[in-house]
């Protein structure tokens, strides 16, 4: 299992579009991928679950992957979150 700590820089918070970008990216991997914040862990492959986290700009969260391609999953998602979500 691999885990990285990140901060949400997206101005509107984790709304439908950024959640969709994350879910699409996470779905490419076999590993179980989760986003954890505020004491909850949610499936990063599910848009609806990501939305229910209610992440706002500046919130810290953990990105965790567990499975055969866990390293690739974390690296890819980290770069997607840092580069593709509008700031």
């Amino acid at each position, binding site marked *: 299992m691999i885990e990285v700590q990140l901060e949400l820089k997206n101005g509107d918070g984790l*709304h439908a579009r950024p959640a969709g970008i994350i879910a699409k990216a996470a779905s490419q991997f076999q590993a179980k991928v989760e986003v954890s914040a505020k004491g909850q862990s*949610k*499936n990063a492959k599910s848009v609806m*679950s990501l*939305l*229910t986290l*209610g992440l706002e700009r500046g919130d810290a969260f953990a990105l965790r992957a567990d499975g055969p391609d866990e390293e690739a999953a974390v690296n890819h998602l980290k770069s997607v979150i840092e580069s593709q979500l*509008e700031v």
Partner: protein
Amino acid sequence: MIPDVISPPSSAMAQATGEVHLKGLRISGLRALGELHLLKRDRALTASGPDPLSEVDLHLSWHDLKVKGLRLFHSKKDLLEKRGLNKEAQLFDTYAMMTADPDFEDVLQKHLTNHDTLFVALTKAADEFASQLRALDNVYLRERAKDVEDFALEMQRLLQGQSFADEIHSLAGPTVLVARDITASEVLDLADSAVKAVILEQGTKTSHVAIFLKSLNIPALFQVPQALKKSQPRALAFVDATTAEVILNLAASEVPRFEARIRESEKRQEHLRSLRDHRLTTIDGQIVNIWGNAGQLPDVTQALEHGAAGIGLFRTEFLFLEQNSVPSEDEQYGIYREILKRAQGKPVSMRTMDIGGDKEWKHLNIEKEMNPFLGVRGLRLSLRRPDLFLPQLRAMMRAAEFGPVQIMVPMVSMASEWETTRRLMEETWVSLNLPWAKPQFGLMLEVPSLLFELPEVSATADFISIGSNDLTQYLYAADRNHRDLQDFAGDQPRAFYRALAIALRGVSSNCKVSICGEMASRPLEIPRLVALGIYNLSMSPGQMDEAREVVLQMSVAEAKTQLRAELGVI
């Protein structure tokens, strides 16, 4: 043909059928006549409902529904993108992602295993997620609960085979649709249908539904109280969006009169449309150019369709407003490039952000002011915030590869301010070292003090655009948004014209003058403005046809005489 009944006099008939006049909020379109079709239904998610698929294998039925859903959402997304409504299209992207959501599917399967029908399972699963969303602190994220519910409703409709599209396409003749509200998904089905007008009891001006009705050019009124209750199913109705009025339950004998009105209106529209391709001159041969104002991408397309000579004002605020975050230089570049592509080689005046004033800009860390219209607004903010201003300038200059760009700055009060800005723009242009034509640099004339600085300013500006809304508000010291001060300057704004006439004498001949405020489209003001030598009028696309007609019927000489007689100007 022999009529079934002999019509009594129209007033008696009107009484008998219960003719009702209702007012609403004008959204789009002109006039239409049609049979009333009432959408009486409960849009709330319910836990009970017929489930024609409950007998068959549950896994298979969800799988089939999923495929249908994806197909539907993708086709709606494509439809919107084709019309240039990219932001609206995202909603259907979200629905498509929800359709394929693994966690939603898990919850759904759990309910199916508990012997719920698919219909009920959809309600319960959507509710599980929606209730979690409703509990969030963030208002914006909380509203996503409605997206989840709307998505589930769409799926239930598909499941029941009750597609809104089928209902709409089974309508035989011209129809006026009346409903409490319709969804962004449903409104798309009205394209190429028998629905000639839409009346809603609810609905808001800025909703997706309103944007799409405008794009379809379907006459529509929102917030019409008791429209459903007062409508008799299958009776006739006449909708006049230009006066924001609908007449329900028309007597048959009245129909020819309204048909004549519509024919007349259509003929006039056709005539006005035919003027779009003509070179526009006054009777005495003065060329006048009609430009379009735009605040969103679809407005650009619409302005061009209406024969605009270019875009005289593109407000860039929406970029900063809608995102609730500062758009990056590249993101802005992408949008400016798209604007220019849509303008098809015609010039576009892009106004740098007019931020401040009455709006709150949390993400920009701007302090609330006591008197925001006289505060750090427009260029005043831009000059204090190079972190916002320079990326915007660079993005516009880079986009100039795709068409002629005019960069226009708002809220300039003094020649020295303009000079600072102009130098900054020149330096930015030089630093970018781009191989294409340099954009023109100009400014808005909207602060009264600038009226007396025009000789200096116009010596170095490529163009000046009169922002008559703000110029009037500042000149008359009357808040234009104040309920009691609407049209404060009145029909004879003598002070406005005198100030302008005197000021324009000082404008260098190399500096183009245009106007982009609301005045530019008023039939009464157009001859006066042209008489003052303002030959570039910029307005919202819907007003261009009529303005063109005014120009074609006026003479500059006459307009000058009249201006002198009425207002003592020139």
